[in-house]
Structures are given as C-alpha cells and as structure tokens.
C-alpha cells in the first residue's frame, strides 16, 4: 500500500460493521485511532511504510463493539460509511466516526495478514467467496 498521492491504491480489504454502544450520553465504538495527514507518520508503529499518513487503529477495548465486529489493532481504516479515510486529518477522521446520528459504522479496513491469506488461498485452490472473506477492492483518488 505504498503509494503517492494521486496514484490508485490497491489493497485487500475486509468489511467490518460496528454497532455503536450507548454509554451514558455518548455513542462509543471501543477503539482508538492514530494518524492523519497532519500527523507525523514516522511514529506510527503499525504502518509498513513510514510515510503512510493513513488512519490506523491503535488500541481496541477488549469485549468492546469493535472487537466483537472483528476489528484488530494495527488495521488501517480506508473507508468509513463510504467516506474515504486515506487523506483525512486526524480530527476529520474522528468526526466521521463519531457522528451522533449514526448508529452503525461500516468500515473498510486492511491489514498485513489479509494479503498473505489471499496469496495463500490463490496459490492453493480456486477462489472462494463468501461473506466476511477478504476481497480485493480498488480505491481511486
């Protein structure tokens, strides 16, 4: 996923649907994000390419809604409810995730293990496609 701005990004993504949990007056998702185009990409421990300014999941509350939905630490969030997350400031990303009128967020995330899984499965047998398996997704910028 090393790319220059303006170049199409190809990634193996997973669709994750998180139901927001109501806690007192807030709707929480149960994870923390880091990164953004206004942040320092060199300090991101999860990114493969240290110039990647995307939004990454840095912490997951165990037994939270995100964890149950399948989100893992180190995932890069590419889309939230259809909105692109690869060229967002940190604050804009936070706002997109915490919209008060949305109960559900549908994320497209990618992680390293997905690529390897696809390679293995492509090498072994015919492709199998069902809900939850990683699928190739092409994002244009």
């Amino acid at each position, binding site marked *: 996923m090393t790319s220059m701005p303006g170049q199409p990004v190809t990634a193996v993504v997973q669709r994750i649907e998180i139901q927001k949990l109501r806690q007192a007056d807030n709707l*929480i*998702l149960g*994870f*923390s*994000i*880091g990164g953004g185009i*206004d*942040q*320092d990409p060199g*300090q*991101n421990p999860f990114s493969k390419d240290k110039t990647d300014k995307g939004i990454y999941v*840095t*912490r997951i509350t165990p037994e939270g809604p995100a964890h149950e939905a399948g989100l893992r630490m180190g995932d890069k969030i590419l889309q939230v409810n259809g909105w692109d997350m690869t060229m967002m400031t*940190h604050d804009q990303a*936070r706002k997109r*995730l*915490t919209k008060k009128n949305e109960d559900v967020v549908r994320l497209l995330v990618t992680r390293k293990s997905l690529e390897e899984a696809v390679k293995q499965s492509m090498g072994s047998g015919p492709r199998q496609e069902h809900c939850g398996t990683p699928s190739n997704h092409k994002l244009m910028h």
Partner: protein
Amino acid sequence: MDNESQYSGYSYKSSHSRSSRKHRDRRDRHRSKSRDSSSRGDKSVTIQTPGEPLLDAESTRGDDRDDNWGETTTVVTGTSEHSISNEDLTRVTKELEESTPLECKRFVGPALGGCLSFFALVTPLAFLILPQVLWRDALEPCGTPCEGLYVSLAFKLLVLLISSWALFLRPPRATLPRFFVFRCLLMVLVFLFVASYWLFYGVRVLEPRERDYRGIVEYAASLVDALLFIQYLALVLLEVRHLQPAFCLKVVRSTDGASKFYNVGHLSIQRAAVWVLDRYYNDFSVYNPALLNLPKSILSKKMTGFKVYSLDENTTNNSTGQSRAMIAAAARRRDNSHNEFYYEEAEMDRRVRKRKARLVVAVEEAFTHIKRLHEDEVASSPKHPKEVMDPREAAQAIFAPMARAMQKYLRTTRQQAFHSMESILTHLQFCITHNMTPKAFLERYLSPGPTMQYQQPNGRGRQWTLVSEEPVTSALRQGLVFSLRRLDFSLVVTVTPLPFLRLGEEFIDPKSHKFVMRLQSETSV
C-alpha cells in the same frame, strides 16, 4: 616442438633428463636465496638477462631486488670522503647535462626596455635644457608660471622614475619562446611617442629657434603627462588585466598523474605556461622516477605468450588476427597478477611503516643526547667538564646513531637519490640551530616535498619546452590543450572557462523562523 622450454617466468624447468634437473634444482635453490623475498613465494625462477646494466641512471633498480643489499655495500659517511657513491656520480652528470651556459639572450629584452625608458625620461629635461644652452639670450624671460611648471614637471618625473623602478626594474623570471606581445607593443608605443615628440621639437623649436620658452616648458610637461599615461597603460596591460580569474587550468603530470587545478585570468599561452610553472615548483611533489614501476615479478608473468599456428593456407591478413587471438587468450587465462599486486602493495606499505617507526624512534633518541647551552650555564663544575660544540659538530655527533635507520628508510621509500649524507647533515645542523623537535627534522623526509625543496640555486635555470598546436602568443580559450615538456616527463595543461555565475537573492525575515512540535495524537472513539 611443443615442449620446448621458453626462457620466461614459468616453464624454465622443461622436460629434460631427470639427473640434470636435480642439479639444476640445487643450483636454483642456491640462486634463489640471494634473490629478494618477493620471488621466494613463486615456484618459478626469473632469470635476469645479462644485457641490462646493474645500475641505471637513478641507481634505484638495485633496491627492487633486496633490502639487504645495502648492508653489504660501503656506506658513504662523513669520514670516508674520498669515495663517491654511484648515486653522487649520476647526480653530478645529470646536473652537468642540465645546466646550459649562461645565456646573454635573457637580458636583451630588459636591456632594450631600459635604454628606451632612460631615453624617454631624459627627453623632457633635454627639451628644457637645449634652448637654454643654445640660444639663451634670445629667449623671452618666463617668470612665475614657468617656475610652477618646473615644480610640477619635477614631481611628475620623480613619480615616473619611482614607479618605473617599482614596476619594471625587476630581473626577468622567464624567457619566452615568442615575443611578449604586450611588452613589445608598449615599447613600440613609447618609442614612437618619444620619436614623434623629438621630431616635432626638432622641426618647430630647434630650427627656427623658438623664443617662447613657456611654450617649450609646457610642451615638455605634456610629454611627461603622456609618459605617465603610457605607464598607466603598461600597468593595466602587464599587471592588472590577468588578475581577474577567467579560466581554470588543469595541470596533470604525465608520469604519475599528479594533478592540480588553477584559476588564471586572460593570458597568452606562453604567459600561462610561465604562470603554471611558477606554481608547479611549489605545489607538485617532486618527481621520483623510482616510484613508477610495477614490481617486475608481476609484469614478467604476463609475457609468457602463446604460440599461434595458423592452419589455413592463406597467410595474408593473419597478423592482426593472431595478435588479437593472443590477447583474447591471455585475457581468458586466469590472471592473478592483480592479486599479487595487491599483496605486494600491502607488503610494501607494511615495510615502509616499519622502517618509519624505527627511524622516528632513532631520531627521537638521538635528539635527547643534545641540549642547548644557555649563557648562564657556562660555568661548569670541574668534575663534569662539558664539551661545548657548535651546531655542525653537534649534528655530526648525533648523526651516527640515526644514520642507518635513515638510510634504510630512504631506500625503502626510494628517496635516496634526493638526499645525500651531506644534505642530511646540513639539515640536521639547521634544525638544531633553530631548536626544532625531531618531528620537525623528519618532516622533510617523511613526505615528498615540493620540487622547490630540491632545487639548487644556480643561475642557469630550468629548460622547459612548450608544446602546443596553436601559436603560443594566442590567448587562452576553452578547450585549449598544451603541454610543458621536460626531459623525462611532461605537464599536460587543459583550459576550461570558469562558469558564469548567476547570483540570485532571497530575503529571509528574521521573524519568520518558527517551529512546531510534531504531532502524534491518539483519540478514542
């Protein structure tokens, strides 16, 4: 026969009878012991063809063979003054053939210029004096304005005299192969000038015996003014014009590749050559012909050739084909000479460093034997009489323990042709006189100094030949190449113009230096 032996590096031991081979082996073993250590590693024996002289012009080839060679020869020390080593002989002969007879041609140009300038300086005075001498009674008296003119004339002549002395009265540094264009131009100009003034004077003043003395004095003053302007022109053309750098000269010595870059102004080729040679003597390390060759043990291996037999019937154009085939075959053969070169060089470095260490220690120890006697220490006790020596004796006293180490070091670094025992002693005496440390004494020997250091000041000068495809009075321009040749090496000079610089400006507001911390925030959603 294919198994014929070739007298080369390798196959000396050919397929002859076994008994003779045994004898040959024994002889070879004895012989190889006296060769240098580098060939002991080989399995073959290199045979020195007897046609080569034992000691060539620089007498350094002998040291290729064996460092222990110096042990068994007699050393020229201060005591044995009647024997002269081979090195001294060759050096003396080289000096003799180098020195040319003192050329009087060198002084023709300056002498001519001197005469002309003397003539030019005397002319105004002559203009003033002649009417007074010849027709004094008929002259109109000329009061204060003339005296004012006299004063100004006197001072201008004084200035002209002093500046001529300062600028032009110098011994010439070089003889150029062609005329020095600017100098010739100026001399012609001065000559024409003065001649025309004299012509005018002769026709208009001397003949009709002009009575207006003030006019004559003004005329003489105008001549002096004009001479001052010509001198200004000479200053600009000869001294100032070439000061602003315009070209970059790359000077490369042809034998060992030592190179330097210089910036010069607008000069003609011959003047640029003189300029380069001035700097050559200071900047380039001295040319040492003994340092140039690859060791023979490496080069000789390459000479074993293949014999190429052509099986074709037509032998018309096979010469180039043969040589090409031989070269290709030689290249394809596994060539280890680079390996040997590497090890030989490493071995040489190690040897030089070892000798240098011994030399430094010996010199340091030797210097501790001497100390300077101050005036207040003159009174010495009768029990320990101190022998008071002058610098020469002191140098001789401490030279003996370090002589051997010095000689071995010089031989290893192939510098022994440049330093005789006498010169080392003189240098030691010099260092002692000026309170130098051993390190200062050694700096002359540890690194090869510039050529200037080894010049003996004789009036004969050095002969250089300027080789150029363009006429040597033409100006420098891009892409010009000329070379300065001496007997055994040459300096190749390439001219490139200096780049034109486009300098831009960028203003930075001192208040614009601001910084922020790099962000790495984490928010939980």
